[in-house]
């Protein structure tokens, strides 16, 4: 976005009065003036929220493919009684299913549930580490969504709409609040596993300026695309290149008078700072052995996801606004037992480590952590290869699944909502995806009805035309 376009945008940003508060503003202003730009020309400058925020940062743990709630969070002993039998048609007649028919046999969870923490939250044996954080977690057992296929479901979760083209949550948040770190992007995406259905749609800027797009960090090789110097260019040569560029660009700025050039000079300097600060970001050598062990960064199967979790903490520590961890895939249509055990072994320990680490550093109180998938899974089984033992899995289920939140002004140690004894429908406190989005924005100090952007003749927002803040979740 050019400085000029940004000014137009800014004048439309109704909630924005004057320039922003937040840390590092003075330093930032001088940085900009140095290159002939005013701070208000910077689309990523930190901006004041609509009202005081409970959370400054958010880490979104997206469990792609839809984890099975009745094997992890929502115990259903009744299912064991029905195991192997179909449900009466009266109970299943309105169900919309992706692969199986409503007459499919019920699958009781093979996993045991126990109470945890002072709050006595019931959690599955698959989550021994997360269970130790029960008192910090607010578990929602009554999520529902409109989508029951992966790609639309993921679009719905992150952009509030099942059809592509709209900005993702992280883009909305950086558009609303800017970034506090000028050496790193404001919205960072870390991924692990096999790749997600919606791919980069999950962190697209949609119709917002591309300044607000999520920047994928990679967990091997260079963390940001094209961050490393090219072959044969040392740091010294890189600096020399930038100096030469700056000088020639400044000459041209003087002859054309176009502030766009000043903005480009500034972008190159930011690129260089990103290059310089990345090694420190990725240098885990100063982390204690205890921390490394807690996240499981030195062993399988926790290595990749653990590295991402630790990186998430280090990013938030450096002021990055929105960190999204995408882990794929929990799409267990078959071999549920084997598959879900594997994913839990991969993610449970690092997830809990991140919560604990944030807490012990006093960062959890202003970092919102969200965990969950795009929908849940059916109480009925899906069997693709009947001749194989243990082949059973579960189909997609959008009408009652679980997610959890922690930190950032969320009241820990509680369970919100209930589903019926079979887990087919919600019986108490339904929470729709737009409600979840409204709550997330609310914790960041943003009113979801006021965070809008004019596009194609309409003021769009993340929550489309609905969404209510879930008050029960809040401290």
């Amino acid at each position, binding site marked *: 976005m050019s400085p000029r376009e940004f000014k137009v945008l800014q004048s439309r940003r109704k909630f924005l009065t004057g320039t922003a508060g937040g840390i590092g503003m003075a330093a930032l202003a001088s940085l900009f003036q140095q290159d002939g730009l005013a701070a208000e020309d910077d689309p990523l400058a930190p901006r004041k929220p609509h009202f005081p925020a409970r959370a400054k940062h958010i880490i979104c743990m997206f469990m792609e493919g839809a984890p099975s709630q009745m094997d992890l969070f929502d115990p259903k002993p009744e299912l064991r009684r029905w195991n192997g039998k179909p449900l009466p048609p009266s109970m299943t007649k309105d169900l919309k299913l992706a692969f199986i028919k409503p007459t499919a046999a019920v699958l009781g969870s093979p996993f045991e549930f126990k109470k945890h923490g002072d709050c006595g939250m019931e959690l599955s044996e698959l989550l021994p580490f997360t269970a130790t954080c029960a008192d910090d977690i607010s578990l929602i057992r009554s999520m529902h969504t409109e989508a029951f296929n992966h790609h639309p479901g993921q679009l719905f979760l992150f952009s509030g709409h099942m059809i592509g083209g709209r900005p993702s949550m992280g883009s909305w948040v950086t558009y609303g609040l800017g970034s506090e770190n000028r050496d790193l992007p404001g919205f960072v995406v870390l991924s692990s596993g096999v790749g997600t259905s919606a791919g980069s749609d999950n962190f697209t800027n949609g119709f917002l300026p591309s300044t607000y797009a999520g920047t994928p960090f990679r967990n091997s090789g260079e963390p940001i*695309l094209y961050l490393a110097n090219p*072959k044969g260019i040392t740091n010294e040569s890189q600096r020399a290149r930038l100096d*030469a560029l700056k000088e*020639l660009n400044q*000459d041209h700025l003087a002859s054309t008078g176009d502030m766009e050039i000043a903005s480009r000079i500034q*972008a190159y300097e930011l690129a260089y700072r990103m290059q310089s600060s990345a090694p420190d970001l990725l240098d885990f050598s100063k982390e204690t052995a205890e921390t490394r062990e807690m996240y499981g960064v030195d062993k399988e199967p926790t290595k990749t996801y653990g590295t991402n979790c630790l990186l998430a903490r280090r990013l938030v520590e450096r002021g990055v606004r929105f960190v999204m961890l995408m882990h794929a895939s929990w799409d267990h249509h078959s071999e549920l037992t084997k598959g879900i055990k594997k994913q839990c072994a991969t993610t449970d320990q690092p997830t809990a480590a991140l919560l604990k680490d944030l807490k012990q550093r006093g960062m959890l109180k202003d970092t919102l952590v969200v965990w969950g998938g795009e929908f849940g899974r059916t109480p009925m089984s899906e069997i693709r290869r009947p001749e194989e033992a243990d082949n059973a899995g579960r189909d*997609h289920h959008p009408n009652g699944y679980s997610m959890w939140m922690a930190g950032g002004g969320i009241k820990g140690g509680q369970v919100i909502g209930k589903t019926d004894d079979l887990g087919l429908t919600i019986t108490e406190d339904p929470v729709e995806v737009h409600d979840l989005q409204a709550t997330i924005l609310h914790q960041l100090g943003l009113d979801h009805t006021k965070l809008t952007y004019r596009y194609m*003749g309409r003021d769009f927002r993340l929550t489309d035309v609905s969404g209510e803040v879930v008050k029960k979740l809040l401290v």
Partner: protein
Amino acid sequence: MRYLFPLLLAFAALAAPVDFRKDVEPVLKSRCQGCHGAAQQMSGLRLDSRDAALSVVVPGKSADSVLFHRITGAKGLRAMPPGPKRLSPEEIATLKTWIDEGATWPADAITQAPVKSTHWAFQPVSHPAVPKTSDDSWARNPIDSFILARLDKDKIKPSPEADKRTLLRRVSLDLTGLPPTVEELREFTADTRPDAYEREVERLLASPHFGEKWARHWLDRARYADSDGYEKDWARPYAWRYRDYVIDAINADMPFDRFTIEQVAGDLLPNATAEQRAAVGFHRNTLTNREGGIDNKQFQFESSLDRSNTVATAWLGLTTGCAQCHNHKFDPISQKEHYQLMAFFDHLDEVEVDAPLPGELGPYLAKHDEYRAKREALLKEYKVPELMPPWEEHMIRAEANPGKETDWDLAWDCLAKLTESGDGQKMIHIPAAKRTQREEDLLVNSFIRNYHFAVGPKVYEEVKFKELDTKLRDLENSYPQLTQAMSVVEEPGVHQSYLRVKGDYKALGAEVKPDVLAVLPPLKPADPKNATRLDLAKWIVSNENPLTPRVAVNWIWQELFGQAIVRTPNDFGTRGDPPSHPQLLDWLASDFRDNGWSVKGMVRKIVISSAYRQSSKERPELQSSDPANTLLARQSRVRLPAELVRDSALAVSGLLNTDVGGKSIFPPQPAGVAELGYGQHDSSGWKESTGRDRYRRGMYIFLKRSTPYPMLMNFDGPKTVQPQCKRDRSDTALQALNLLNDPVFMEAAAALAYESLSDGPAPFRQRAAEAFERSLGRQPSAKELDGLEKYFLREKAIVDKNPSAAAGRYVSLPGGVQPVEMAAWVAVSSVLLNLDEFITRE
């Protein structure tokens, strides 16, 4: 509700009696009838007549009237109107007093929303007289008179003409997307003929690259991509055939009206040609979801919606999509009209058609029988003729008895979408003897590839269908095949279309017939009882349609000035920006329409003008009065679109492959990019192009929707989901990293260095000046040369210290050049390719 009681009291007294016309009607009209009026009746309520209103009004008793409860939010009811803008206390008091005074309603006061609009864009295109100006000698054509007349008003003088080099680089980039060569620049600067510039314009208009450059602009509107968009994001192996159609049409200067008709309804033209069937591929650019178990009805609905909205935006500049759930809030478009428009697209079947390129047909026909015979033999060898009929029968049984056999259920579900095009579930019901060859082949292929869903992996292995599949593909590849095009046809049978309540595809409302918006001139269907897509296409480009020519010239103008006359090119409605030069817009629109809809002609007219030729230098004296350069007292500096950033680097370094048209390419991209998506397991994985294909123009890069090529994304490349009428021009650190460190750009720098050093020894300053001219089209100033020399020496010293650290900057070393010198030259070249000026059209 505690606070409501005092609130009710507060409304208790309004001193004077109310007047319906003066006080009440305006409130009802502006705040209620939008949702409860003639056009729509939410919750079945109308508030535009007394009889209707009596369902919620008890005359004389506001306390008993639901209307009053609703507007105050009393009794726990949701307050109306919804949303943040509630009725003011005065408005509530007015309605309360009106009810208490008996709710009188004059007999003639039945209000209805007007269908006609005074909005400028819906008025007929005028043909304004060319205005007088302060300096008629400046005007090369009427465009200039309009621009200057507006400048005269504010007593602003236009800018002087840009120097010849800047001008040639500008017009070359704008018309062909490629920078001029040094030879072209030198010839032009030496050409003193008065029409030297016009000659260059003609040369560029005739260049095949003109079609590429302008096709890319159109493809943005067509939301073109090479993949499905959802889930596995399957490749569309023949999407490019539509792209070729656009390039060819623009190169041939196909009149824009014909270009329109062919893309909207080419399949309905009498004796439609292969090209015309490829043209309706426009509608196939919609996203497709083939996930298992998706609701086909929903996605059919979404596709129709997308097709209708895209046509409305690309040609009419309208946001009809806003009326999907309710009447348009700002423009005179009712929800019913939205669905009437959509009805034109409601019943499209997706098909692939043979669309042979020149030279394909002969060899194909010569070998066709031989190919068929070999294919049949292979099928026989693997017992397909024996195994397939029972499979078909079993599938049909599974369809009839869902839930009995889950594996067959899954196989059945997958059949719907697992053919490359067309619905396998429909095809399987056609008796084998009646299937077309194409249908039969698709079904057989689907059977061979997906048999395992039904019978499990063991049996699948026994029949060796994987092996057969490979053999069939190899066989196909070894024989000449015809290029296919993605196309559409109308579904057979009677078509019925419905309004969808609140935009929900499941909630069928009243039946609607295909028609256009009432605020625009009426449709004149060939058969008044049965309006078709072809009628719609002809209506779009009819003489009476005020939007199409305005939207089209606004588009062309935007690509030549970096900004449009109507700055919201996707929204010509009441919420869009008004035109900066309304008379100019109409003059251009009528000229375009009345002179054969020639795109090349319109481009020519604009680039010939003095307005276009102005210098783009900032004018400090205008920075406060016209900061956005709306009045065009100068040209604009414009950051090049993503594709052209790449093309320019490849062009000046001599790497560019200038072949026009054809399949998409897969240039090298960093590991890990494709893996972010889910589709890397199948045919849409990124198979890196080799040889010259790697250096083809950016517009041919395979557009994979779920994991786009990172360089295109970094530079605000095509969005491919909705019609895109304007590219962003952002300026980010990721762009800087991309140009600095991407091996593609380093390779270009090395090639440029090689070119600079390959013709024997020469002083640094001479070579640097040549490289500078090659890259930026102009001679460097002495200061700029000093800067480059200083940098060259600094870099050489760095490399000298540790030559091995510079290894890998280049592959080939020109004869007689020292490695250290070459290494420093690569760095100098990369600086040139990173300059703001390099990626900017001045």
